[in-house]
């Protein structure tokens, strides 16, 4: 049990203007669950991409020893063949294909030149049993929730006889039940001899599951801790990650007397023609000036749909109900109407519909409010750079320059670009959909502090979050959503995790 399956020595990886990894040493023992933690942009994902051959041998310096051999992977295929499987921050399944097709995609079960579909389905069923996922293998991926998709990804990895399984923030998009389920599964796999590397910003789960933890900071290995020696706790991890101690996770929040009603939604129902079902039923809620209202609930409960339907209804739902802004009934037909009315929506899916990945940081930050930078429709390029640099400083975005493409930023820093973009719109109502997904502890604290100062300045915030501690720590009031309905409203003093979970599951 104590021999190393993986030894990465002296790994250095540079991008133009950034040294993402600087002489990193990383060693993983056979059969353990090894967690990799660090701030946004510390180099965790990059290290895993070096390991899995996404960055081929020669594009970095240093040495990789895996399963007793020095490895020089030229691509992902090489590392897959050696028994390494990586599940990325963003899932890589084909939504239109079925579960079994996805599991064996690129690794088809052949009979001669043809695919043996019967055998494929049989084996897929076995794999699904292994990850304890109870779905029809013939279901399409797009009909599954994120949690189940995650398990399909793991089933896919297992179908290739994997020795080392790497998961990059697998639980970022999962609710607590699904997360616990996934962690359980990883423990089971460990008992069957699969070694596992897990990247996560959720320190609680790191502590719950890790055999060892390695901390990266600014592209360097800070330390590797052995959980069985009892040296791992949240404060210790945070101290190693950020280089100083952070006493609180949530900044103090005084619950002031809220102001007048800013946004009121009444009997709001939405039918989705493309999904062919009702996504929202008779939702009513209010939001007051200077208030943070939390929306709790399980994944897929309809909170994002609610936000999108209010924010100009981009999914083209058929909507019934009334929406009032500052006491006036309004019809917001397009996102541009909503923006003009003073609403901003920070999406939960930053890569899918938040950012323009091929454009640079400044273009993304200014996109939703270009007119503020333009005179007679001509953009003032210098003012744009200046604005972008201001947000880079205040939001602490880690990037060599605002001319860097956002696809080159780490996940957490991309999230900060998204936030900056909507702050630049200077809205009255800010809808945050999972605002701290994939964000490190230090940056979370910064974002919470920012939220506090925004409401102090008179903004009103709707915070959709699947992290109960966050909902409880930041909200003035909490609505619980389940199956497209609001099942309860709690003031912060009466809200408890138990009550919320009960309302969320009924």
């Amino acid at each position, binding site marked *: 049990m104590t021999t190393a399956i993986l030894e990465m020595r002296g790994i250095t990886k540079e991008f133009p203007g950034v040294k993402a990894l600087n002489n990193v040493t990383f060693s993983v023992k056979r059969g353990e669950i090894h967690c990799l933690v660090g701030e946004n942009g510390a180099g965790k994902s990059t290290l895993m991409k070096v390991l899995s051959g996404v960055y081929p041998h020669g594009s970095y310096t240093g040495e990789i020893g895996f399963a007793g051999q020095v490895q020089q992977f030229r691509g992902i295929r090489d590392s897959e063949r050696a028994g390494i499987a990586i599940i990325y921050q963003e899932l890589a399944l084909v939504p239109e294909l079925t579960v079994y097709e996805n599991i064996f995609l690129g690794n088809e079960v052949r009979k001669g030149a043809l695919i043996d579909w019967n055998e494929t389905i049989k084996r897929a069923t076995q794999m699904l049993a292994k990850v304890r996922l109870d779905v029809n293998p013939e279901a399409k991926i797009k009909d599954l929730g994120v949690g189940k998709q995650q398990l399909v990804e793991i089933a896919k990895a297992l179908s290739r006889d994997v020795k080392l399984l790497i998961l990059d923030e697998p639980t970022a998009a999962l609710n607590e039940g699904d997360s616990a389920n996934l962690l359980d599964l990883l423990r089971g796999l460990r008992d069957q001899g699969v070694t596992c590397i897990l990247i996560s910003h959720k320190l609680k789960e790191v502590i719950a599951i890790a055999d060892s933890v390695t901390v990266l900071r600014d592209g360097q290995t800070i330390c590797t801790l052995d959980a069985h020696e009892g040296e791992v706790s949240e404060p210790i991890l945070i101290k190693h990650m950020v280089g100083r101690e952070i006493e609180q996770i949530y900044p103090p929040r005084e619950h002031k007397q809220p102001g007048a009603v800013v946004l009121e939604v009444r009997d709001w129902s939405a039918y989705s023609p493309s999904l062919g079902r009702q996504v929202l039923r008779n939702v009513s809620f209010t939001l007051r000036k200077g208030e943070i209202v939390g929306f709790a609930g399980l994944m897929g409960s309809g909170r994002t749909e609610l936000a999108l339907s209010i924010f100009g209804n981009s999914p083209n739902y058929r909507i019934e109900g009334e929406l009032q802004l500052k006491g006036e009934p309004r019809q917001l037909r397009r996102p541009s109407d909503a923006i003009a009315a003073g609403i901003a929506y920070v999406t939960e899916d930053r890569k*899918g519909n938040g950012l323009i990945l091929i454009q640079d940081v400044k273009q993304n930050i200014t996109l939703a409010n270009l007119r503020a930078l333009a005179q007679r*429709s001509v953009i003032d390029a210098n003012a744009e750079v200046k604005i972008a640099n201001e947000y880079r400083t205040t939001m602490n975005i880690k990037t060599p320059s605002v001319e860097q493409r956002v696809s080159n930023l780490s996940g957490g820093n991309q999230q900060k670009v998204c936030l900056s973009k909507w702050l630049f719109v200077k809205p009255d109502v800010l809808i945050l959909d999972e605002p701290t997904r994939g964000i490190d502890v230090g940056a979370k604290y910064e974002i919470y502090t920012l939220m506090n100062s925004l409401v102090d300045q008179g903004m009103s915030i709707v915070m959709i979050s699947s992290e109960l501690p966050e909902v409880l720590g930041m909200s003035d009031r909490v609505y619980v959503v389940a199956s497209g309905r609001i099942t309860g409203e709690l003031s912060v003093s009466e809200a408890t995790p138990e009550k919320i979970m009960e309302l969320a599951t009924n």
Partner: protein
Amino acid sequence: MMSGKTEAQASGSFMQDLSKVLRQNIRDYGMYIALFVIMVIFAITTNGIFLSPRNLSNLLNQTGYIAVLAVGMTLVIVIRHIDLSVGFLAGFLGAVAAIALVQWGLPTLFVIPLVLGLGALAGLITAFPIAQLGIPSFVASLAGWLIYRGMLQLATEGTGTIIIPDAAFNAIGNGFIPDVPLGGPFEQIHSLTLLLGIIAIGLFIYNDLNSRKKKIAYGFEVLPTAIFALKLIFISGIVGWITWVLANFNGLSWTVVVMLLVVGIYHFITTSTVLGRHIYAVGGNPEAAELSGISVKRITYIVFGSMGMLSALSGILFASRLQSATTTAGTLFELDAIAAAYVGGVSAAGGVGRVTGSIIGALVMTSLTSGMNLMGVGISYQYIVRGVVLAAAVIFDVATRRAAR
């Protein structure tokens, strides 16, 4: 124009700087280099005829009607669509212009805006099923291809080729800007062309120096001084040389003036305005653009409308050049325009591509035709060579993009 980015690191020797700048910006400079290489090759294989004033002047005039299409096509491809209908739309609208001039007896100054308007309308009609119903643009514009081909044949059915006797109209494709007689040493030289060329170079140098100064004042990265100077000299040299060659012939043609205006306007729109940024945002990620308050539908209409208008312009340039409208006008223009856009660095994945690049792409494609014609290469081989160049351009694009990761 060419732009460069470098890191603000301690600059090494000149050659190191140069190779670094070239490597980092190879995607931007690639087609300029390709054009340069092609011109040198033809200069050698045709014993210099290729670079003769007459041939260069002709080459630029032939590029005109493809270049304006390529500019419009660039934006269409940037927003992840394609428009196959532009060739026959150009041919049909050229015939409409001829009929309006010849049969209806309308004046040129009225016919040109009319035809441009009809073109824009046709573009909006193509955009309707695409924007409103989500029909793939390939299919919608293929329908347009068939319809406009039919309409072109209908329009020219009775008369066959329509000869256009209107001198003003024909000047667009064949005429040159007037000269200012200066006499003396300028007797043989088209002095207005020379003057415009010198003004253009002056403006270019002034602009570049100015923006460099501003960037330095803001503390942004700039090219190393020696490289910057080289770039200025190189571009001024090329513009100066072309001006000199043209001034020694008939001067600047109206076609080139039109082409330069179109590129100038579109370059400005795409790089400096809110509309331009919105177009590239829609191309980069339509969902994100929509959620940022940009109407993807509106952008689709605008881009196809502009494509239709430029198709009309292309049709006018072509009819004017031939001084007639023919039953086959516009055949394969769409493919030349698409090829020019790809050679010029547009990416099929959307959100990437410059109109200046597409003009260079158009020049590459017409240079190939012109050079091979001079060499007496058979038409079948010409198609093959152009196909190979197109494939090479796209492979180069993909390869440099991968290397840039």
